[in-house]
């Protein structure tokens, strides 16, 4: 007698691909199901979509690569840990900033960019030029040693007479007052200058401390005057790994502050001495070889220096920019 119903037990056998006992009429159905099961078990994983592939190839957050790991469509690569986007941006900005500062300090930027850089540097690190840079601002890049210092100052202090005098709005003539002013400014005298220095050229002693002591020390620690020299001094000090730190920063700040204060005092003294209306030409001709070419910005200024311009505009001084 042929059965016409399939029990749950027979269904279980059929679905596993086996023919139920005593039901030969179900053999073909069982064989077909067995074929399906076999084919399904032999399938491989399909090609993952782009989104899923990216998900599967994410870097490992934890654990390690297992020997049992199976890749179906090509091996998945284990990408190394990567820095975050914010870290990359910060690093790139830092590198760019350092590069810009280096190029700016070297004076290699294009004209407007270099002017902007100088302005920023002057704002952050005030120098003696800051007080007068807006007046006429012409500086002579040539660094002539001031006379009357027996040459010692030539090594220790680099002073541009013209720059100094011109910066004082041309109220001083190149006389011995310049010497006095410089001596007062830098604390150097003929008697105290010395050639055998024990401090480095950036105002730091060999042990890395700032020597703010005697006049001799001041001489031994040459003071940067122009913005270019000052920036060079800062740049060189910054490059020296022995000088980077709070002490060097303090030295820079102290140096800039002293220069500014003393220059202000000098300018006040000159104003009081010459009185209003004096038409200095700003050409600070020292008694020696000082040939500063700072220019007064008054139209009545007399010009002693050949390089001066009579229209009050600064002469083209290639060395004027640091």
């Amino acid at each position, binding site marked *: 007698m042929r059965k016409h119903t399939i029990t749950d037990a027979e269904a279980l056998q059929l679905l596993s691909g086996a023919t139920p006992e005593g039901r030969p009429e179900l053999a073909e159905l069982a064989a077909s199901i067995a074929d399906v099961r076999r084919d399904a078990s032999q399938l491989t994983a399909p090609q993952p979509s782009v989104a899923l592939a990216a998900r599967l190839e994410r870097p490992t957050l934890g654990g390690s690569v297992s020997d049992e790991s199976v890749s179906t469509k090509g091996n*998945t690569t284990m990408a190394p840990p990567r820095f975050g986007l914010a870290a990359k941006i910060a690093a790139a900005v830092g590198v760019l900033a350092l590069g810009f500062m280096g190029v700016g300090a070297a004076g290699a930027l294009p004209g407007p960019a270099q002017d902007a850089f100088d302005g920023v540097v002057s704002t952050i690190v005030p120098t003696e030029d800051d007080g007068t840079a807006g007046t006429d601002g012409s500086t002579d890049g040539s660094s002539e040693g001031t006379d009357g210092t027996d040459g010692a100052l030539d090594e220790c202090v680099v002073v541009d007479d013209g720059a100094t005098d011109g910066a004082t709005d041309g109220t001083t003539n190149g006389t011995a007052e310049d010497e006095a002013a410089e001596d007062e400014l830098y604390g150097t005298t003929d008697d105290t200058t010395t050639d055998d220095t024990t401090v480095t050229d950036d105002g730091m002693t060999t042990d890395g401390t700032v020597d703010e002591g005697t006049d001799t020390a001041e001489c031994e620690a040459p003071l940067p005057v122009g913005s270019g020299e000052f920036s060079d001094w800062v740049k060189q000090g910054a490059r020296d790994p022995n000088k980077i730190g709070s002490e060097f920063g303090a030295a820079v700040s102290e140096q800039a502050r002293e220069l500014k204060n003393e220059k202000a005092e000098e300018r006040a003294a000159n104003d009081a001495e010459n009185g209003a209306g004096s038409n200095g030409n700003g050409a600070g001709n020292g008694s020696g070889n000082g040939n500063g070419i700072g220019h007064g910005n008054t139209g009545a200024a007399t010009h002693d220096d050949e390089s001066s311009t009579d229209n009050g505009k600064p002469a083209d001084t290639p060395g004027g920019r640091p």
Partner: protein
Amino acid sequence: MADRSTLGDDAFASVLVAAQAGASWACTRLWSDHAPAVAAFLTARGSREPDDLTSEVFLTVFDRLASFSGDATAFRSFVFSIAYRRLVDELRMRGRRGETVELIASEDPRRASSAEDDATTRLGDQRALQLIAELPADQRDVMALRIVADLTVEQVAEVLGKQPGAVKALQRRALERLRKKFEAPRTPPALANDSE
């Protein structure tokens, strides 16, 4: 019915923990173990893009992996539950938009079939899947999950949201239907429309 997963319970637990921690190797292992069956199930149930849908299923699986807890059997049910829901979404969407079928010359019904073509289509899972395709939708779901996905009655009940007794009844009726089909002379089957 034995689970086809190649991982034992201990190994699966290790892989699951690693996958939940974000280890790509563990996610790859889960994909390689379960994706073939998912793709086969989706194919058997009439998905037009079973490979793409399989990837979407596993993207969802990995998104929800942190909330899963259980053994390999439970994970298989978890995967196929997501696959079934995505399949239903596709079938519904296809029903609303209308079905677009790419014209393939070899599959053009207006083209006269050769003896070779007939032999090819009768071979392997094509014939059996065609038989499954003749079943009503609920019976097709049960048969595909039981045969292709190799799930137990309880797992199928969980995936479909039915009682195990209802699943047993559906599979019994499906087998009866198939038996009658095998007994009768073969005629070209008319594909059922899931979207209706």
